[in-house]
């Protein structure tokens, strides 16, 4: 058994940022365990640009953004292992990992959960119909194309207006496939407005809101899909069915934090985020087990993932120094119009950054954090949309010792 101050599970943007920041705070007895062949996580296949605008002040591709961190990791000789899959995490912070050197067992003082997220699959959506080949999640199609030099499609229909779906619409078009349309079940797009312009409108790919796939055809390869309009309860409206002939259906219907390891260890999850319940230190219900990035809640921008992981590293470093962190007993609830918040618990004694997503489109609204009826913090927004994560800093001065906090759209 090998002892480590911190074991970081995942070598994507969150893991890299957490490792660097821990190192810079003097915690050097750390290791990053990455299951893939290379560090970088999902950024390796996100070859489009637009990353790093807030962090580096310029528009980078995913691999470049990752490499900027990897270079710093290499420069400091921060230990990492690729092709290392964590098989098990226990609640006393033991980690079984499968590595090129065989099975390894680590005992960590602190564990950083940064495993990222995965895509919702067809099965999770429960789309009816046959089961032919040619139904891919956007990320799988992206991996085939950008990592493996393989083309998965000719005639394409896309379900879901998530950012990866729209980016894949453009990517497929540039590589010679024909993307007929993007269908979104919600009354609003789920990806960023800029991607609607530069990935769909620029290539004359129509986006239909309030539409979904209601049947899948083909006994071998996909031969077509049935599309229906949906009502305000998102139920298909009979009589609106339309057939589309295609050989490929790309799904971009949401991301789910990848918490298999966490739940086995006894980490409690928030049903709204599908990530851990954390306090302002990004600590889960298990002392010394921290989570940040997309395994905690799905982010819209990698720049925010890096920042969050750095904030986590700050707390984890204090934990290593002091053996504990100040208790957090004040809960934060998602109120009217708010889907979820991070953190879900605070101490009330220090300033913290509140992250949240709204449930629908708002204009000229106020995001208000209240405790015992009092306004604790307010953020005014010209526009608030579910596609964008909203963050603001909350000062501790007004927070009282008792009383649940609630954040709502007003």
């Amino acid at each position, binding site marked *: 058994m090998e002892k480590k101050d911190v074991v970081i599970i995942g070598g994507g943007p969150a893991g890299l940022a957490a490792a660097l920041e821990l190192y810079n705070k003097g915690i050097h007895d750390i290791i990053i365990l990455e299951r893939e062949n290379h560090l970088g996580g999902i950024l390796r296949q996100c*070859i489009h*640009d637009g990353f790093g*605008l807030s962090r580096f002040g310029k528009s*980078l591709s995913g691999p470049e953004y990752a*490499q900027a961190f990897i270079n710093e990791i290499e420069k400091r000789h921060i230990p990492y292992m690729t092709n290392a899959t964590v098989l098990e995490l226990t609640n006393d912070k033991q980690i079984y990992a499968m590595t090129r050197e065989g099975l390894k067992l680590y005992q960590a003082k602190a564990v950083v959960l940064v495993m990222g997220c995965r895509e919702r699959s067809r099965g999770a959506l429960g789309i009816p119909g046959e089961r032919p080949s040619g139904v891919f999640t956007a990320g799988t199609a992206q991996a085939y*194309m950008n990592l493996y*030099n393989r083309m998965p499609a000719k005639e394409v229909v896309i379900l879901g207006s998530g950012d990866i779906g729209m980016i894949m619409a453009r990517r497929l078009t*540039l590589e010679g496939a024909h993307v007929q349309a993007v269908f979104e079940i919600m009354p609003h797009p789920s990806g960023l407005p800029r991607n609607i312009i530069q990935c769909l409108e620029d290539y004359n790919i129509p986006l239909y809101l309030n539409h979904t796939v209601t049947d899948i055809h083909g006994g071998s390869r996909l031969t077509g899909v049935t599309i229906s309009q949906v009502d305000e309860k998102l139920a298909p409206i009979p009589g609106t069915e339309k057939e589309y002939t295609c050989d490929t259906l790309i799904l971009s219907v949401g991301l789910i934090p990848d918490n298999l390891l966490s739940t086995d260890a006894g980490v409690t999850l928030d049903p709204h985020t599908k990530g851990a319940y954390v306090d302002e230190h990004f600590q889960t219900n298990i002392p010394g087990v921290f989570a940040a990035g997309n395994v905690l809640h799905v982010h819209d*921008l990698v720049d925010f993932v890096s920042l969050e992981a750095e904030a986590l590293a700050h707390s984890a470093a204090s934990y290593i120094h002091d053996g504990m962190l100040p208790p957090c007993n004040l809960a934060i609830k998602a109120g009217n119009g708010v889907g979820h918040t991070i953190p879900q618990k605070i101490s009330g004694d220090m300033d913290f950054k509140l992250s949240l997503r709204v449930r629908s489109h708002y204009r000229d609204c106020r995001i208000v954090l209240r405790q015992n009826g009092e306004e604790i913090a307010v953020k005014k927004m010209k526009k608030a949309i579910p596609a964008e994560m909203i963050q603001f800093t909350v000062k501790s001065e007004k927070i009282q010792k008792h009383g649940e906090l609630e954040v709502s759209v007003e």
Partner: protein
Amino acid sequence: MSESTIKKTYTCIICPNGCDIEAEIKDGEILSITGHTCPKGEAYVHQELTAPTRTIAPSVLVTGGELPLASVRLTKPIPKDMIFPVMDEIKKLTITAPVCEGTVVLEKVCGLDSEVIITKNVKAK
């Protein structure tokens, strides 16, 4: 407002904020711009109105590498209507591993003021 004045809404694509910018336009001239939160937004609307530009970020074939492809991007935006001609040039490229991010693989692509650069390190096999 005279009859030839039109109001047009743009979604700025320069950064993820995606500001909705409203422009009053008369005879191809911008009279006023509202809704942008930074100077880049104003510049974007001018550009969109006169000569819209975009970037693309595909891949080029690598021989002898641990990966079959190296991702690339353009150093500067190109006119929107040049996307497919530039794509055709990029598809023709083959490079030999090892390759390093930042390497220019095509200068002045299609005679434009933009270069194709590698964005991913690919080691030799």
